[in-house]
């Protein structure tokens, strides 16, 4: 039983192979980390899986369906969501509104009802606000609910992205460097949030540079180098692999 299967995936940017013939699978209900030195192609891989980029060759199978070349919103409706390494917050909205956009697919989007402000829209929104407040509470941001996002601290925005992604009710959540730029205390908070997400039965795919965090929470680790798979396995297996040590320390 696999949730996500990547087959011989490649992506070229004008002759540079950012991802080179990569294959791996992700099982449901696990925390799956992808690590590798800078420029190894981790974010490119995320963009390929979530439909932000189209692969040059190869395929992505999600939930037994070929989804190669699907648009991100089509994948979102199938239960795939993600966060971004460089924040992609809707800075023109408050925190709770950001999360409520995440619930977009689960709300009434009829134009006529919205235009005339029918009660069904208002009831749906009131309901959605409650659910989203719970999600803000879940990531520890309840106090910021009605704050404009442009006056929130960086660490809080990182967690806000996770809450927004959770509002889509994902089966699989891809987190691109959730701890990047955070201090150790904030990093531990994120750590806790990720564990709590996984304990809800959501499959987590994690790109992260914080090795302590990766080694501690991952069920499975995939190591990339120059767009190719260097090795994969449990934390213990990866830690002792001489190729991994060489890639990180040079040699």
């Amino acid at each position, binding site marked *: 039983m696999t949730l996500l299967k990547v087959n011989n995936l490649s992506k070229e940017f004008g002759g540079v192979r950012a991802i080179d013939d990569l294959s791996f699978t992700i099982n449901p209900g696990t925390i799956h980390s992808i690590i590798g030195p800078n420029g190894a192609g981790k974010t490119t891989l995320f963009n390929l899986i*979530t*439909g*932000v980029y189209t692969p040059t060759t190869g395929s992505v199978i999600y939930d037994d369906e070929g989804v190669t070349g699907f*648009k*991100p*919103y089509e*994948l*979102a*409706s199938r239960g795939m*969501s*993600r966060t*971004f390494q460089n924040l*992609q*917050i*809707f*800075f*023109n*909205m408050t925190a709770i*509104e950001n999360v*409520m*956009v*995440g*619930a*977009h*697919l689960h*709300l*009434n*989007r009829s*134009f006529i*009802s*919205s*235009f*005339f*402000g029918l009660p069904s*829209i208002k009831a*749906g*929104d009131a309901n*959605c606000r409650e659910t989203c407040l719970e999600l803000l509470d879940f990531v520890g941001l309840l106090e910021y609910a009605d704050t404009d996002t442009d006056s929130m601290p960086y660490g809080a925005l990182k967690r806000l*992205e996770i809450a*927004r*992604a959770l*509002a*889509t009710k994902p089966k699989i959540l891809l987190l691109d460097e959730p701890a990047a730029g955070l201090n150790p205390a904030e990093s531990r908070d994120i750590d806790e949030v990720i564990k709590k997400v996984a304990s809800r039965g959501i499959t987590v795919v994690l790109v992260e540079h914080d090795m302590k965090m990766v080694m501690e929470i991952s069920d499975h680790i995939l190591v990339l180098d120059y767009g190719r798979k260097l090795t994969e396995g449990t934390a213990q297996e990866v830690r002792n692999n001489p190729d991994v040590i060489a890639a990180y320390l040079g040699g």
Partner: protein
Amino acid sequence: MMNLKSPRTGGLLALIVVICLLPLFLDNAFHYEIAILIAFNAIVCVGLNLLIGYGGQISLGHGAFVGLGAYASAILTMNQGWNPLLSLLAGAIFTGFLAFIIARPILKLKGHYLAMATLGMGIIISIVLNTEDQHTGGPDGMYVDGLAFMETQMYWYWFVGALLTFSVWASLNLIHSPIGRALRAVHGSEVAAEVVGVDTTRFKVMIFVVSAVFASVVGSFGAYYSNFVTPDIAGFFHSIELVVMVVFGGMASTFGAVVGAAILTILPQVLTFLHDYEHLVFGLILMLTMIFLPKGLVPSIAGLFKRGDKK
């Protein structure tokens, strides 16, 4: 549920009060003329603000949609003998359809490129209206019968006042709905909107069409009100004027669009006493406002009050 302190219901009530009390201060037909003109411009701006302010997409061609509505009404009533309201409806449907066709390819563009494309679209439509003179009367324009049941200017005043109130109300409804949030998300970050399930192209197209239909309906009523249409209405300057109203009043603020339309419609009339220096002062006022209130009039002033509240 009525919360008077919320900007939504409070603002709407304020607008209704202004529309109801304004006749006390309007002395003559010219004053009413300006008030009606303000309402027409404000309705277009409320629609355009959905596209520019909330959706974050620029259009330098919305004057053309006003023109299409106006000419659809003029041609269908005068040349084809259609019922005026039916002509208005046909004009709105045609304009909406045309906007839909144009929107898909055009809204793939961003920033300057989108500005150029919409500019080009507006100019093409304006050229067509100018050159198809067997139907449109060419640069001289054409005469349009009014609406028989709109007997006096006062009728028009109350009618456009109601129409403006309705469009503000509908615009606020739209903004405070999942569709409105999706639209603002498109403005905030397209890629983030996509990964949470927002089909960004669909929403951009939708709001482009909605704003075009707003413009077309105003064009039709404007033609019936003034009994005359000229191609100027579809021209580049009118398009720019509409965008300036939205930006001046404050983007992403429905009431900003109304205030912007009101001030920029009145200002040139007030400044006429300056004779030759009129345009100079007009430009200067625009420049200074944007330098000192870069978010536009209404959001900047609302911001001041917010800060005041906290003290």
